[in-house]
C-alpha cells in the first residue's frame, strides 16, 4: 500500500505523505509510505519493534537528518508546502512540527527556563511575553496548577509524569501546529499515563497530534486514526474504531489480537 488514504473524508489533510522511504545507509528502514494526517485529530502509529514507525515519525519533522547515514526519499507536505527540499530550513519546520520523546528530558534548569528555552532561542527577549507564553504552555499541558508556585525550582525535582508534561509544555511554547510524540507515556505509571492521554485528547482540539505507541490499548483510547506498520511497511491505515473492530488486513488482525508470527 503506497498511498493509503482509504478514502479518508478530510479533503485538506494537515500533513500529506507520499512515497516516503527512509534508508539507513543502504538498508531501507521504512517505506514507501503514503498517508494523510488529518488536522486537529490524533493519529497513532502502532507496530512491533523495528517496524519503522518511529523512523517514520521522525521523518515528519526531519529529525532523521541528525542520524548519520540516513537518507529520505519521497515527499511530506505541511498544509501543502513541502518540508523536504533545497532551501527549506529544518529548524523552521521543527518549530511548526514539535516533538516529545519517550524519556522525559528536561534541561537541568528551572521549570520556567525549560519552557522558555525555545522562545529565547527563537529570539524573544521580552520577559513579560516569555512569562505569559510559559504560563499558557504550562496550562495547556495541564501542569500549571502544580508548578505555578515553584517556577524557579529545578525541573529535575518534578515527578516522571510532571517532567513529561513539562516536555510537552516546552514543545507547545513555540506554538507548533503539529505535535509528534514518540511513546510519551511508556515510562509512566497508570495515573500519569491517564493524565497524558487526557492531555493528548485536549490538545487535539487545537493541534494535530501524531503518536507512536507500543500500547495498543493506548492507541485505541486516544487516537482518531491508527496506522499499523509491519516490517517497514504501512500495512493498514483507518479510523481507530474500524481498525480495532474489523481490520482489513490479516497481518493487522494477527498483531492487534496477539497472534504473532
Amino acid at each position, binding site marked *: 500500500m503506497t498511498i493509503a488514504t482509504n478514502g479518508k473524508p478530510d479533503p485538506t489533510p494537515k500533513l500529506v505523505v507520499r512515497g516516503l522511504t527512509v534508508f539507513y545507509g543502504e538498508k531501507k528502514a521504512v517505506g514507501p509510505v503514503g498517508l494523510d494526517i488529518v488536522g486537529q485529530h490524533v493519529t497513532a502509529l502502532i507496530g512491533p519493534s523495528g517496524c519503522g514507525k518511529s523512523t517514520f515519525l521522525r521523518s515528519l519533522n526531519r529529525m532523521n537528518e541528525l542520524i548519520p547515514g540516513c537518507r529520505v526519499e519521497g515527499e511530506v507536505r505541511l498544509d501543502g508546502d513541502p518540508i523536504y527540499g533545497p532551501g527549506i530550513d529544518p529548524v523552521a519546520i521543527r518549530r511548526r512540527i514539535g516533538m516529545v520523546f519517550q524519556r522525559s528530558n528536561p534541561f537541568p534548569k528551572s521549570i520556567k527556563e525549560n519552557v522558555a528555552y525555545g522562545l529565547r532561542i527563537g529570539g524573544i527577549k521580552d520577559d513579560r511575553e516569555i512569562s505569559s507564553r510559559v504560563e499558557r504552555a504550562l496550562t495547556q499541558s495541564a501542569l500549571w496548577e502544580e508548578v505555578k508556585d515553584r517556577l524557579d525550582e529545578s525541573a529535575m525535582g518534578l515527578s516522571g509524569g510532571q517532567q513529561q508534561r513539562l516536555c510537552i509544555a516546552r514543545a507547545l511554547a513555540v506554538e507548533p501546529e503539529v505535535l509528534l510524540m514518540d511513546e510519551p507515556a511508556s515510562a509512566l505509571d497508570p495515573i500519569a499515563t491517564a493524565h497524558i492521554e487526557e492531555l493528548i485528547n485536549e490538545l487535539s482540539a487545537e493541534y494535530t497530534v501524531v503518536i507512536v505507541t507500543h500500547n*495498543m*490499548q493506548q492507541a*485505541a483510547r486516544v487516537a482518531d486514526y491508527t496506522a499499523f506498520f509491519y516490517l517497514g511497511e504501512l500495512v493498514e491505515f483507518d479510523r481507530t474504531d474500524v481498525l*480495532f*473492530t*474489523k*481490520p482489513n488486513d*490479516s497481518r*493487522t*488482525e*494477527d498483531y*492487534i*489480537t*496477539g*497472534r*504473532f508470527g
Partner: protein
Amino acid sequence: MIRASQQARAHTNREYEGELRRVREQLLLMGAKAEEIIHGSIRALTERDSVLAEQMIAADRKINQLEMEVDELCMQVLARRQPVASDLRFLTTALKLVTDLERIGDLGVNMCERVLELNGEPPLKPYVDMPNMAREVQEMLHEGLDAFVAADVEKAQRVIARDKNVDAYYTQVFRELLTYMMEDPRNIFRATRLQSIAKYLERIGDHATNLGELVVFMVKGKDIRHAGKLGDDKIT
C-alpha cells in the same frame, strides 16, 4: 481471512487462547443441549410421551447453568485481555448467542408443558404440518450452530433465508387450527395448546435467525439485523 486467522493461527499467549477455546466449547455444548431439547420436545408431542417431556423440562436446567458459565467466562476475558478485532467480535457474539440459546431452551420447556396438558386429552387430529415445521426449525438451529463453528457466512445466510418457511408453516397451522375451533368449541382447549406450540416453534426459528445474523457479524464485522427497517441491507 478472519476464518483463517481464527482457525489456523493461535494466540501467542496460550492461556488466552485456552480461554477463548473454552468459551467456544461451552457455547457449542449449550447449542447441542438446545438441539436435544427441541428434538425431544417434538418427539414428546408426536409420540405423546409425557416422561420424555418431563426429562426435557429437567434438561433445560443444564442450559441455564451453561448460560451463566459462558457469561462469566466472557466477562473474565473482557476484563483481563481487552480483546480486539475478531476476538472482540467473537466474544460479543458469544454474549448474545447464549441469550438466544437459553431462550430456545425455555421455548422447549414451554412446548413440553403444553404437551403434558395435551396428553391429558384425546388427540385432536393427526399432525401434518407441525412435524415439518419442527424439522425446519431444528435444521435451522443445527445449520446455525454449524455456521458458527465453521465461521461460514453463506451457511448463516441460508439459515436466515429459511425463516420465511417457518413463518409460512405457522400461518398454515394457525389457519387449520382455527377451522377446528370454529367447528366445535370443545376443540378450543387442545387447539390453543397446539397453536402455542406452533408459536414456540416460530419463535425458535427467530432465535435461529438471530444466530445466523450473529455469525455474519462475527465473521464480517457487519451488522445485518433489522436490515429492511434501517436500510442498507446489502452484505458486501
